[in-house]
């Protein structure tokens, strides 16, 4: 047990801090109000290029595909994330953390050269076409289908929960190409431009009033048969690679801790009958209960990070992060609302609004995250089966494969 970083990492951190100090002003968010959309986009691309040059973005992506080409080092990645957050500077990216690893692992050389460099540069952006209205938890039951006509797949069907579909250049998408195969074996993993004729995107308004997601409708959308990752019928197994990466990050305890500290500020600021809310025992006790849970999750993440930095699979400590983290965020928002009482019911645009309405927004958004990316029920199945080794539910008589 040693909470200090070794000299190598301290030096890495110091270099990064120096870099941030010198270059912070180039971060595109600084341009937010004074530049046009196109200038802003250019600033973002320049920033990403600068970060890749210094190894602070696309760090482990091979140089030949536009990355920095370093060996994976979870501690350095953690330091990068931590310092960017601490300095409130917009971090770089590695293209798309679901698609890029998948293409690197399973794409052809031609696909890698076509897709990865522009994606890493931020010039080709992606959305994910997996979920469908009738296949949520049971993803493999998807029915969006494609038949081959000449050199093209012709796609028909509907996707849902597609975040960013209205802005993305490209989609990676699961479609059923072998209708007669068993359900896990009839799916292919296709990639195509969102400008393809026959694709319609409709924003999906959520309870927060915002459109985080979209529905995407396909009507005879034609995609060249070469635009497939892996073989026909292997899409389910290709996608599982992507899913592995996607779920990371939901329930991040550092974010949770900073929300708790915001809540403390709120409770020190707001008063009831002249008394600070934080001094009112019932609220004070609820706050302390949450702090205990937040600390446990924070240290748990240090444990996960250590396992990763040693190349070990963290196991249970990792499997629980999404379930516990999203729940904790929801409860923090809940206490904030209760601490505000009537004022906690106000929302965007109201007089007397506190903290810009963000607690209500989070309260609802966090509930969405408890449901999304694997409902709490599915998470518990996963923990029970993968981490604790409990048996799956038996197949029942009427179930088709």
């Amino acid at each position, binding site marked *: 047990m040693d909470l200090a970083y070794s000299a190598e990492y301290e030096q890495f951190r110091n270099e990064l801090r120096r870099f941030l100090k010198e270059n912070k002003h180039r971060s595109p968010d600084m341009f937010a109000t004074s530049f046009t959309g196109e200038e802003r986009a250019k600033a973002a691309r320049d920033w990403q290029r600068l970060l890749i040059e210094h190894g602070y973005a696309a760090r482990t992506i091979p140089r030949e595909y536009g990355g920095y080409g370093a060996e994976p080092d979870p501690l350095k990645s953690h330091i990068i994330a931590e310092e960017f957050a601490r300095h409130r500077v917009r971090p770089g990216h590695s293209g798309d953390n679901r698609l890029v690893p998948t293409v690197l692992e399973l794409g052809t050389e031609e696909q890698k050269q076509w897709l990865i460099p522009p994606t890493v540069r931020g010039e080709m952006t992606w959305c994910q076409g997996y*979920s469908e209205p*009738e*296949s*949520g*938890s*049971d993803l493999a*039951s998807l029915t969006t289908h494609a038949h081959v006509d000449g050199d093209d797949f012709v796609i028909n069907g509907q996707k*849902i*929960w597609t975040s960013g579909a209205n802005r993305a250049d490209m989609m990676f998408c699961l479609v059923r190409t072998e209708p007669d195969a068993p359900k896990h074996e009839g799916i292919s993993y296709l990639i195509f431009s969102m400008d393809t004729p026959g694709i319609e995107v409709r924003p*999906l*308004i*959520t*309870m927060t009033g915002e459109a985080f*997601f979209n529905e995407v409708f396909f009507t005879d959308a034609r995609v060249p048969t070469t635009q497939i990752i892996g073989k026909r019928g292997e899409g389910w197994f290709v996608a599982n690679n992507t899913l592995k990466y996607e779920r990371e990050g939901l329930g991040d305890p550092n974010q949770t801790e900073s929300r708790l500290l915001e809540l403390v500020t709120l409770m020190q600021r707001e008063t*009831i*009958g002249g008394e600070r809310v934080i001094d009112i025992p*019932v*609220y004070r006790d609820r706050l302390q209960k949450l702090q205990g849970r937040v600390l446990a999750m924070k240290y748990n993440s240090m444990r996960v990070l250590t396992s990763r930095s040693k190349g070990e699979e963290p196991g249970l400590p990792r499997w629980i992060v999404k379930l516990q983290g999203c729940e904790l965020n929801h409860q923090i928002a809940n206490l904030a*609302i*209760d601490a*505000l*009482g*009537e*004022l*906690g*019911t*106000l*929302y*965007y*645009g*109201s*007089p*007397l609004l506190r903290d810009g309405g963000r607690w*209500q927004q989070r309260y*609802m958004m966090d*509930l*969405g995250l*408890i*449901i*999304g990316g694997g*409902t*709490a*029920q599915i998470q*518990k199945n996963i923990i029970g089966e993968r981490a604790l080794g409990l048996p799956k539910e038996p197949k*029942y008589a*009427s*179930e*088709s494969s």
Partner: protein
Amino acid sequence: MDFALSEEQTILQDTVREYLRQHCTLESVRLNVQDSITLDADIARGLLDLGLPGIVVPEEFGGAGLGYLDAALVAEALGEAIAPIPFLGPNVVAPYALQSAGSDQQQADWLPKIASGNAVFGIAFSASSSSRSDGSTSVDSGQINGEHTFVIDANDATQFLMASGDSEIYLVDANDVELTLLRTIDRTRSVAQITMNGTPCELLPGSSSNGALRRSIAVGRIMLAADSLGAAQSMLDKSVAYAKERKQFNRVIGSFQAVKHMCAEMAAELEPCKSLIWYAAHSVLAIPEETVVVACHAKAHLSEVAQFVARKSTEVHGGMGFTDLLGLHYWFKRIGLNRQLLGSPDEVREEAAQAQDW
């Protein structure tokens, strides 16, 4: 001993439900919610035909002369349909307060207008029911100064009843106040801040000594609790229906224990709440010495249970519950607002403890 609704009460509630099912659809609520919240004139006219505005106004003043259990059944039905209609303030708390503390003249002036829908009272009691509001007022020679926040059923009000000091209730004309709408997560109930500047006001004389304000707040809490009961029952019903229909892994999801048990837990928590509301509402006239305590518990307990149901119901609906497509969130948000109005759960529980001298 007959702890049950009378046939008339069942008919009353079913009639309101049936009316709302036809006229207060999710589509009409959506339309309402897009603009600033205002009484839906069509629905209001229909409810007037059903006699709801005068439900607790005595027959001699042109009302239906019913009791507060009847009113709670209506509130429950309005909650079920998330009806964007003022009811609690103008049609229950105001006539209760006027009958409890108004002079004969005041009763003769206002109760008939309430029953005919010609007077609509907003309720500015928040400063006395929830210590979170900064608003305070002072009265001097028939004029009132200051402000109230979280005034309920404010938008279409023609009059306001407002708390001042520890226990007094004043009546003011809506034309004489400055009104600023507050925008809450819920858009089916109008809530506002009002400012008085030398505004003429009239005391309800009985309120100076008889505890009418406290009991009026209790009546308001029972109606909010009944509203949340209805809203939560709707969410449970929708969950059960969805769980019977929606298929995943070739099975309706209601056959999975996890989903089945969420539904069972919602039902197990919610069902006893119905009896709690019945008792609390019945007590207003029949066992008034118990009303304040039971109203606190009804309000606090329904706040917790309805919140639980709102969350679990959303989970049962999966991603669909999070979108606007099914509109489930309108119920979720009404429950969220009700939770905080007229006192948050912990404040209200503390009042229950004090009222029992514990």
